[in-house]
């Protein structure tokens, strides 16, 4: 690891003043410290933001709108009973990510900012064939370029629920829709976000409308092993059901695009229709309609299609009584208290 300066500001103002080109914010460090060990990231200065006051709280308004401080840990958010009750698929996604040890430390802001897990981003001397391995290659939203998938589980239900990111920087405070946070791939396979130099995430916000899906919300993650692995495909599905019909649907896919991938066309198709397995298959077909296989990963397109249809069926069957449940397994029964296969 390259040497670096280390500072521990006590206020957000001090933190922003401490930033300079080459500096990096240090939250939980579970991603950054790992990347510094390989040399893939070499900050000249670490600004430890974990002592900043007021960034570790979860606030819920009477109308259900919720503000999550940037430093809340993944575990604390998933374990907050009120949060898990209102946003069950978000809790489910959080608990499907990483390990117990990592979730205790990793922050929610760090989760949405985590870098792709392809070796190209993670090693000092990346393989000459960038983005090798079809599992981490994006099949949607690439604009015809090579790109690695965004690895976050948490961001998938968040984007389906219209989450907003609150930031502050040298230019003042502003908000960025989570859907716009991760930029499309450029000429080089990069990891660029809409954050400007020196901007710091202070909170994530879910609007009041996001709380209306609690009864029918699931996050389904498919991966190479049952636990502690990144998704090969995932889907967050939420339905608001009135009188046996779908009043409103939300659907987002994970591990298929360089960003959490919301599919408005599929949502529009579902609205106003009666619950039906063929309808879910049709919506999933629409969700993957623009997908292009790269590096032999045509399997990912079919897997994502089936994952989306299954997640919609699981959401229609209802949120399990015990939440947070074990992360949903594709082998589990679709109704009731889910357990692993």
């Amino acid at each position, binding site marked *: 690891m390259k040497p*670096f300066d280390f500072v521990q500001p006590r206020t957000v103002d001090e933190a922003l003043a401490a930033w300079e080109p080459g500096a990096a914010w240090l939250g939980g460090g*579970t991603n950054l*410290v790992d990347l510094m*060990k390989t040399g893939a990231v070499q900050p000249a200065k*670490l600004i430890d933001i974990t002592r900043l006051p007021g960034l570790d709280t979860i606030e819920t308004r009477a109308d259900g709108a919720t503000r999550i401080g940037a430093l809340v840990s993944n575990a604390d958010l998933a*374990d907050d009973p009120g949060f898990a009750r209102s946003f069950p698929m978000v809790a489910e996604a959080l608990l499907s990510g990483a*390990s*117990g040890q990592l979730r*205790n430390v990793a922050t929610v802001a760090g989760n949405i900012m985590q870098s792709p897990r392809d070796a190209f981003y993670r090693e000092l001397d990346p393989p000459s064939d960038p983005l090798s391995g079809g599992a981490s290659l994006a099949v949607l939203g690439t604009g015809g370029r090579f790109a690695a998938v965004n690895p976050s589980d948490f961001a998938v239900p968040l984007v389906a629920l219209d989450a907003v990111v609150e930031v502050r920087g040298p230019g003042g405070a502003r908000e960025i829709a989570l859907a716009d946070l991760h930029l499309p791939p450029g000429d080089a396979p990069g990891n660029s976000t809409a954050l400007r130099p020196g901007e710091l995430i202070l909170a994530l916000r879910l609007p009041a409308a996001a709380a209306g899906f609690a009864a029918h919300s699931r996050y389904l993650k498919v991966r190479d092993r*049952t636990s502690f692995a990144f998704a090969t495909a995932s889907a967050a599905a939420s339905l608001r059901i009135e009188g046996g019909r779908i009043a409103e649907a939300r659907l987002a896919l994970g591990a298929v695009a360089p960003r959490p991938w919301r599919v408005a066309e599929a949502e529009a198709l579902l609205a106003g229709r009666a619950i039906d397995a063929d309808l879910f298959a049709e919506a999933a077909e629409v969700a993957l309609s623009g997908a292009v296989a790269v590096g032999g990963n045509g399997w990912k397109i079919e897997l994502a299609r089936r994952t989306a249809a299954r997640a919609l069926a699981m959401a229609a069957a209802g949120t399990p009584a015990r939440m947070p449940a074990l992360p949903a397994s594709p082998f589990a029964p679709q109704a009731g208290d889910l357990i692993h296969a």
Partner: protein
Amino acid sequence: MSLSIRLTINGAPRDIALEDARVTLLDLLRERLALPGTKKGCDRGQCGACTVIVNGKRVNSCLTLAATLDGAQVTTIEGLATGDRLHPVQEAFIEQDGFQCGYCTPGQIMSAVGLIAEGRAGDDPERIREGMSGNICRCAAYHGITLAVQEATRRMAEAEKGDAA
């Protein structure tokens, strides 16, 4: 650059001067504080061998920069037993054969202590396996590990009931 931190390690306060902010909690424990019970496996947060309890929560000490921890309470495997009396999780690992070569065992035990405190798994084997998935055992003693966590969970719950009564 010199950074001074104070940690409480296994109940004892320690004032530590760090010459370099790059030192991880894992290297501090093993190389500076003569506490080699915490093991270095992958050194990248993937294997769990370095698991310790910081401020009541299990963490990977290999990804934790010591400089960030001023004021923290740290418990390592060396701090679990009371004199010659083993912690219930340690006893259960012995009774249930929760290890073979033993290298991952301190991390497994600290992770189990953290998991039981989280109250997430209870004695449900599926939830224990999920909760312990951040700890790899290359000898694959997983069956015994799951039984040990189950047994320790039950025993600690009974002891707590006894204390309350």
